[in-house]
């Protein structure tokens, strides 16, 4: 299956002239065309309200595109039936600025929750949760509650939760938005590690320092349009170079 889907002709994520207009008339995306091959690591940058979050929401089909086509893992999202949507989501790990952890559950339960509610067989739950907690470096914190953890640790729990389904794609929407610089770097290292394991990573961010140091592919959005897409790019366009 891997061999069949990963060909240069069929990128893992592909947007073709995508438009998104919200019911209140706000145009969030206009004519966005973007292709992300498997195992890519992409920064999505741009000012607030540029359309980054809309793009992320379209990829997990929290929103539907108004026009154009989006395909993820070879599936046309506009034709994806609602009852098949959960299975798409299981292929995509997601983390957010606000972590979205459940405060009344322990670290272990928060991560296990993702398996429980997707009807994973319970006897596989414990080893899987332990596996992903060791990936994010939270061994020994299984029985802590989120409010007993630092922000960075909470984001690690969220990352662990996003990893329990062995996602092919990892979407991070401002994952370092609430974190100090040192902690942010730790999270980025973790995302690089996940990427190195073969998972495609798309990270929407405002964090200029990280983007500039990393020299990875940068897609810049402004006013709902892609204004720049370069490999090994920085947060801002080079002064003497246009894409």
């Amino acid at each position, binding site marked *: 299956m891997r061999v069949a889907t990963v060909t240069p002709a069929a990128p893992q994520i592909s947007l073709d002239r995508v438009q998104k207009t919200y019911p209140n008339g706000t145009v969030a995306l206009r004519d966005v065309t973007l292709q992300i091959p498997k195992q890519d690591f992409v920064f999505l940058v741009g000012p607030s309200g540029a359309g980054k979050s809309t793009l992320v929401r379209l990829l997990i089909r929290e929103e539907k595109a108004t026009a154009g086509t989006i395909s993820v893992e070879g599936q046309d999202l506009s034709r994806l039936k609602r*009852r098949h949507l959960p299975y798409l989501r299981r292929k995509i790990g997601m983390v957010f600025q606000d972590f*979205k952890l459940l405060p009344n559950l322990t670290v272990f339960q928060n991560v296990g*929750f*993702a398996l429980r509610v*997707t009807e994973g067989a*319970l006897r596989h739950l414990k080893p899987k949760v332990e596996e992903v907690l060791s990936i994010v470096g939270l061994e020994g914190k299984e029985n802590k509650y989120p409010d007993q953890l630092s922000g960075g640790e909470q984001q690690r729990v969220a990352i662990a939760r996003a990893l329990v389904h062995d996602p092919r794609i990892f979407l991070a929407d401002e994952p370092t938005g609430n974190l100090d610089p040192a902690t942010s770097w730790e999270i980025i290292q973790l995302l690089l590690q996940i990427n190195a394991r073969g998972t495609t990573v798309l990270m929407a961010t405002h964090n200029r320092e990280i983007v500039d140091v990393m020299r990875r592919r940068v897609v810049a959005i402004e006013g709902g349009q892609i204004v720049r897409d370069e490999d090994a790019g920085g947060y801002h366009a080079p002064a003497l170079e246009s894409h």
Partner: protein
Amino acid sequence: MHRLWNRIDFAFSSAWQNFWRNAAVSVASVLIVWVVLLALGSLLLVLHSLDQIVAIEKTKASAISVYLADTTPLSSAMDFKLHLEQDPRVTNVAYVSKDQALARFRQLPALDPSVIDTLGTNPLPASLDVTVRDIRDLGAIDQEVRNSPLVDKSPATNYEPNVIDKIILLARVAGIAGLVLIVGLTGLSVFIIMLTIRTAIYLRRKEIEVMKLVGATDWFVRWPFIVEGLIVGVAGAAVAVLIVGFGYRPAVINLQSVLIFVPLAFDPSYLRIVLAAMLGFGLLLGSVGSYLGVRRFLKQ
């Protein structure tokens, strides 16, 4: 199996948590379900009792006594009897003499026979007891015999159409009033269960957001709330079933001692049907209410 068990376990434990986290609203919805089912059970039993009474009264009422004037000679009475027997609507005519009427009268338990003895003479008329095939013909026969000179005028017969009609009317009024009440309460209870479920959903909004994010199916998200609705329905039904189940027989016995002449009876086989219907209706209320509660919200 493991997956199914996980699903059931998750639905029931979440539903149980929801119920108590939201206890005041949950108890309110249990109470309204209880009231609806109590009304339903009582109405069914009352209507059934009225039906039984009507059925018994009808068998009694297929006969009337035509009182003969004391001046009527026996031969004329026999001719009249023969005339009535030839009527196709009539199945049987029996002659009851004045003496027989007095003997019957003496047997009535509620009366003191010495009252009659003090009169010296027998005040009771002889009668022809006419049994008809269809009680709806009784009125017509009553009208015909009244005009005969052989018949006593005070009173001419014991025909009293109103008793049955009144019971039937009572049953109909009780049925309609009860039905209106139950329909209204049903709507109210479905609405309150729906609000209960909406509150539970609101309290769980973060969990639901995460569930959808990590790929839980719509039905996996919905089941705990449907189960919560069923718990409300069963809890309300259980209390109502206990009250009706244990209260029916004492109620019948108490009414029998007040309404001596009414043929009221305890019917355990019908009671079982009523209790099953109450439980089923409770489950229906719970599931419809919770389905309405989850339906709109999970579409997005």
